[in-house]
């Protein structure tokens, strides 16, 4: 019997699990994908928002500001990169100027520090590649960039290290209130739990429905993105937003923490919640939007395209708290932007609400606060790299040539708590395959390492989920290999 069963290991599920793992509770973190972070948290802008955008008084406003406060400390604990690079919301005309000023005022109300409204020339002085047509901008110093999937994966990893059971490849298909507990039925088995936390992203309404909660709906909204080669880094040094609309924060141009350039997202409501395909019009729209802000954007330096689905709540605000329909259900739903920023605060808030409603929380004696640092051989001082390689020569073997990832780093990613079992799992954790050749060089090598370390045949190694096996059949006996 679990005390708490969390459905969904995106950033919300990850931080709720991490927060709960501080207490003497039996916690499950259930994910339908084979790796943590299979949904919305995997594909979004990766922005830590300053907090000027949400309407004052909303949960979004409150948790955005709190999340933005917590993020630097969380990034340190999880040992991932956070770059507080600042942002500009740029205006192109009088109406935009007005909106920029409104955002500034809203930011003041939301207690956002270090904002300024700048003239077009002042913006271009700071970011020389911004369009001549820009008339003014809201600068926010505290905006940051982070890898959204690293945030979700590392919070899940640290939660797992602290005793949470990570249930991968488990898709919840039904739930039953058994009176004294809830029975959660997945495609893999059934689990009994005292409480359920619904952090199921674009499927959160369906999950809530399973326990009779029909109080909200989720509108899937697709956003298409482009990633440019690291050679393009420096085209902007901060996040460049356009003024937001009803459909979101508009198309941005931003550096990524890993040194690429991100363009997008588009924003279109869709009916198929799993439709993560990119489209020709979508890509064209993202490029045109990016060029409006930064005309010199070079889309020919494209290295990959992807789409993410926002979990837009029917209520307009985050839906967080104990369900009125079933007191054993806590929702953390409708976590659209600024969900990533808010996620550490969502973890904190959900657990506080659970305590208030009577869930007994007793602190554990031992809690690992700090996720161990990942070894990145090519960023180490040479002496340190040499010592590490001497102790284990696999750290001296480059597997991914573009991102310069060694075999040792990949083996580490596989053997960490809630470690990688798929090609994409390795990619999201250590960036092997994320560079300009997009795995042309390392794919076969990573398959080989996964197969060896997990002791499964190479033909069973998957890209992402079940059914995404990378190879079809053995041509000859692998034992016969030289």
């Amino acid at each position, binding site marked *: 019997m679990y005390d708490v069963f969390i459905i969904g290991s995106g950033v919300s599920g990850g931080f709720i699990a991490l927060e709960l793992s501080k207490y003497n509770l039996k916690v499950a973190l259930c994910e339908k994908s084979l790796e943590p972070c299979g949904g919305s948290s995997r594909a979004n802008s990766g922005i830590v928002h300053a907090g000027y955008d949400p309407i004052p008084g909303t949960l979004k406003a409150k948790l955005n500001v709190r999340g933005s406060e917590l993020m630097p400390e969380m990034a340190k604990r999880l040992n991932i990169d956070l770059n507080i690079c600042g942002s500009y919301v740029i205006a192109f005309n009088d109406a935009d100027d007005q909106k920029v000023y409104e955002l500034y005022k809203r930011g003041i109300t939301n207690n956002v520090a270090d904002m300024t409204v700048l003239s077009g020339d002042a913006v271009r002085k700071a970011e020389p590649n911004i369009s001549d047509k820009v008339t003014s901008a809201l600068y926010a110093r505290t905006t940051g960039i982070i890898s959204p999937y690293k945030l979700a994966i590392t919070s899940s990893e640290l939660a797992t290290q602290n005793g949470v059971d990570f249930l991968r490849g488990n898709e919840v298909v039904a739930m039953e209130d058994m009176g004294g507990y809830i029975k959660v039925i997945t495609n893999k088995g059934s689990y009994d739990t005292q409480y359920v936390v619904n952090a199921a992203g674009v499927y959160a309404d369906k999950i809530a429905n399973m326990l009779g909660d029909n109080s909200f709906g989720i509108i899937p909204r697709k956003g298409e993105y482009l990633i440019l080669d690291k050679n393009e880094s420096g085209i902007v040094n901060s996040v460049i937003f356009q003024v937001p609309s009803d459909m979101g924060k508009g198309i941005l141009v931003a550096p990524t923490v890993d040194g690429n350039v991100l363009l997008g997202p588009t924003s279109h409501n869709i009916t198929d919640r799993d439709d993560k395909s990119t489209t020709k019009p979508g890509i064209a729209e993202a490029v045109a939007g990016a060029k409006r802000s930064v005309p010199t954007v070079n889309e020919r330096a494209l290295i*990959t395209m992807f789409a993410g689905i926002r979990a837009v709540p029917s209520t307009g605000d985050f839906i967080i708290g104990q369900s009125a329909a079933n007191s054993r259900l806590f929702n953390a739903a409708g976590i659209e932007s600024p969900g990533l920023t808010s996620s550490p605060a969502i973890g904190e808030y959900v657990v506080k609400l659970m305590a208030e409603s009577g869930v007994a929380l007793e602190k554990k004696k031992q809690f690992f606060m700090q996720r161990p640092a990942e070894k990145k051989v090519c960023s180490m001082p040479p002496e340190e790299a*040499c010592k590490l390689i001497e102790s284990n020569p696999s750290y001296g073997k480059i597997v991914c040539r573009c991102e310069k990832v060694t075999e040792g780093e990949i083996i580490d990613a596989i053997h960490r708590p809630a470690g990688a079992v798929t090609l994409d799992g390795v990619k999201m954790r250590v960036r092997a395959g994320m560079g300009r050749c*997009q795995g042309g060089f390392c794919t076969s090598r990573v398959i080989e390492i996964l197969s060896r370390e997990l002791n499964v045949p190479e033909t069973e190694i998957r890209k992402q989920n079940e059914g995404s096996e990378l*190879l079809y059949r053995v041509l000859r006996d692998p034992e016969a*290999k030289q």
Partner: protein
Amino acid sequence: MENTITQQYIDKDLVIIGGGPAGLAAAAAAKENGIDDIVILERDKYAGGVLRQCIHDGFGLKIFGERLTGPEYAARYEEKIRELNIELKLNSFVLNVTPDKIVQALSPEGMLFYRAKAVILAMGCRERTRASIMLPGTRPAGVYTAGLVQRLINIDGYVPGKEAVILGSGDIGLIMARRLTLEGVNVKAVYELMSYSSGLKRNIVQCLDDYNIPLYLNHTVIEIHGRNRIEGVTVAKVDEKKQPIPGTEEFVKCDLLVLSVGLIPENELSKSAGAALNKVTGGLFVDDNMSTNKEGIFACGNVVHVHDLVDYVTLESVNAGKCAAEYIKNGSANGDIINVVPENGVRYVVPNTVHRDSQKDSVNFMFRTGNVYRDAKIAVYDGDRLIKSIKKKILTPGEMETVKLTADEIKSVKGEIHIGVEA
């Protein structure tokens, strides 16, 4: 990254980056021209580069007058390297090359810093990806570049699918159409965006025609379908501007999409060394000695321009090895420099400059055209003066062309050498 380990530079006369056909031939030539202190740094666990996975034959016709397989061709040079006692360091990945020829490499022995008198860049090329052609759709398993498919089958021993569609009729795409067929994969078709194939004629005959695999010119894949494993692609006919023609879309079921959409010289290290690149090809600018614009840094093979035949890589690399040896012994070649300019349908020419008083009897100028020309001439001019004109039945972007100018012809040039196509 700074070398903070003092006194730990490894001094070498010549450091060669890459142990493929270019690096091996250059090393042997340098050794045969009097340089002993050489190291070849190879990132893979074996030398030979991409030849190791090219198990088809047809290599070596120009040099050996034999039809060798890729591994056989590579083995001849590996043997030569062994006989000449040249140091070959495997599993050694070069992270950085500085303009003053410090070469930093990561290997299972540690982080190594070489200090070289001369460097030869021989890193080869890499494949263009799905993103380079902005191909939209889902991101399932089963979408691979042709070179990766070749490696999976020929090195690792796995068949990556049952039903394949090949996009791009470059040589590797054609070769893989045959290879997959021989392994029982149903290769449905090869689609080519252009109105001509960029592969060798002999490959179209031997790899497609002989197996009844259709080649659709002026066609492309416009969308990838399938959530987990690829389930099919949408193909369409394209107009003159290479835009899909509405109404011609067709769904083709497959569980494997092989992308053979071009090669790009792998010049990240060349950039760190400060060597100048050709914006048209992404290859390096070199002179007739295969020297880059950075003194003592030479280059050969597919980092300079993508070759059609490995034999030409070898010939070019022998020149690079000889000239690097000459540089190590006697310093830079001096004297007048003549620019070489591609024009009228010629996309690029290698070398980009030539010494007026070259010590060589002749210099080969290698180039490709940007389009198909029939019954045309290759014309070489010095200003208005025609130096040479060569009749050609056909010129295609898929085949590299060569024009040879003698030392006397080069000496006589007053302005620049212009190479172009004439009707």
